[in-house]
């Protein structure tokens, strides 16, 4: 147990001192995952609304695929993104491999099914007759979409939380496509793996605590928004 206590003590000191390396790693983690989540929302919410509200042949198949995608193994995503971004691969000319952009791409792919799947669930729990009522009150198509999203805002916030939670905590894909390069692509999870393998438990614990802290603060903020909305 000494190892744990010493580690925590050292971690607290590192965080309190504001170690520049640790701060840099934490900031990159936050930026990359936030951007990936944002992009996943921009693409995934309209797509999820469309799948959720418009019946078409083969919809169940698509929903099943999306739901399967919610449990996509990060290493598999990492593998394929690496292949695609490899210098001789189809997108090799972009030169993205081992850059933060590559991590964003991999995390976007991981978050997308989560956002789409939860958006489908969110809009499908709205009473289907509500659309008719809103059109009957004079809503245009665009107004209808906004009103329905507002109606589903609580479960949609869950989609944001789940999407962000999935990408900030994954390590496999970030390690493979980012390469864990110091000052460049090292994020909290990849750094934790590295420090643990080096036996630097104190640094690893510090990084883990920061990761948990970020996760907690983001989810707390979203939960507060969600709960305030519930009361209304």
């Amino acid at each position, binding site marked *: 147990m000494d190892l744990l206590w010493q580690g925590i003590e050292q971690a607290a000191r590192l965080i309190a001192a504001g170690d520049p390396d640790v701060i840099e790693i934490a900031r990159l983690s936050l930026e990359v995952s936030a951007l990936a989540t944002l992009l996943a929302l921009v693409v995934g919410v309209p797509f999820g609304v469309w799948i959720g509200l418009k019946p078409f042949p083969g919809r169940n198949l698509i929903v099943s695929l999306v739901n399967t995608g919610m449990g996509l193994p990060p290493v598999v995503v990492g593998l394929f993104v690496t292949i695609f971004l490899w210098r001789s691969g189809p997108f090799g000319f972009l030169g993205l491999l081992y850059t933060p952009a590559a991590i964003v791409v991999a995390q976007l792919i991981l978050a997308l099914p989560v956002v789409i799947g939860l958006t489908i669930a969110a809009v499908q729990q709205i*009473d289907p*007759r*509500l659309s*008719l*009522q*809103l*059109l*009957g*009150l*004079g*809503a*245009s*198509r665009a*107004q209808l979409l906004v*009103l329905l999203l*507002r*109606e589903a*805002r609580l479960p949609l916030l869950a989609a944001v939380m789940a999407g962000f939670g999935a990408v900030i905590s994954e390590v496999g894909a970030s390690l493979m496509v980012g390469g864990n390069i110091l000052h460049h692509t090292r994020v909290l999870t990849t750094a934790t793996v590295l420090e643990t393998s080096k036996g630097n438990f104190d640094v690893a614990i510090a990084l883990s605590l920061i990761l948990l802290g970020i996760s907690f603060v983001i989810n707390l903020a979203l939960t507060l928004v969600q709960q305030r*909305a519930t*009361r*209304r």
Partner: protein
Amino acid sequence: MIADSRGPALLARGVSVDNRRRRILDLPELAVEHGETLSVVGPNGAGKSTLLRVLGLLETPTRGELWFRGEPIPREHSRLLALRRRMAIVFQDPLLCRTSVSGNVGLGLKLRGVRRGERKRRVEEWLARFGIAHLAKRPAHRLSGGEAQRASLARAFVLQPEILLLDEPFAALDPPSRQALVGELQELLAETHATTVFVTHDRDEAFALGNRVAVLLEGAIAQIGSPEEVGRRPASEAVARFVGIETLLAGRILSTSPEATSIAVEALRLTAAARGRPDEQVWVCLRAEDVSLIADEGIQPPGAWNVIPGTVKGLAFWGTQVRVAVDCGVTVTALTTRLLVSGLGLRPGRPVRVAFSPHSLHVIPRVRGTS
């Protein structure tokens, strides 16, 4: 509201709606006149909601055309929106949004880009009219059924629509809230002269609210007319059964004269004020409230009346009212009160005479093959 020489408020011509298996609505012609309340009444599955969705431009009919104040309704969506914004619809379930009551009531105005100040004023006015001003800030999903339906009605009325469409707005309410709201709506419709189409499966509501009543059976309008006309002079056996004519007897016209028509119903001879041709097969309709029960030998009804001896067959109690079935060779049903039932000592087996005016009998042709 505004008289318009160009045509009725809403006109449907040759409109039909088919689903995969069958035709669910068939309207050769239906006109909704300015300022009237048209009740559309029919059993479940008759196509009432489909009719309302078509009139509300929320569903495109398979065939046919619609005119709004004499102008044909286009198929392009952008122009439909403008027309739809001159109407408002209220459904059986209130379907409120997850926001405050006033937010819900102001929603239609907001969608139309009405300014905040104006919106606030109109919302407050209609919240008050429906007696829910004190609930303005309450989250809509915390309302009781009756309160929610009031909010839903206020949400439609606040738009001052040229056409108001009501789809069974009372069906989900408990009897006291229902009665109160029907009464209030009656007053509001009379006062605002809003052109209204009111769809319901409840005959009493339909007759209470409508200036005209249309009976919708199996997707087609079986009869349309004043409540008096539809209630007392149904056009067919099906309408007669639906509007609650309890005594419906198969008969044959014996003779007819300008004053009276004599009709044979089994062994009985009835006199009706209606006309017909001799030997015509007819249905004789008699409303239960038009039948008097005479238990006392000494009482003589007016001379021209039909008076038939019989025995009480059964009593059905419903609130303060009692339906008495009397066996006169055929069964005649009379509507009376609990007080009268005990006063006359009515019970099964008791001899009694039924009496009704020739004017109470309505006669409709009986088409062969419909029993």
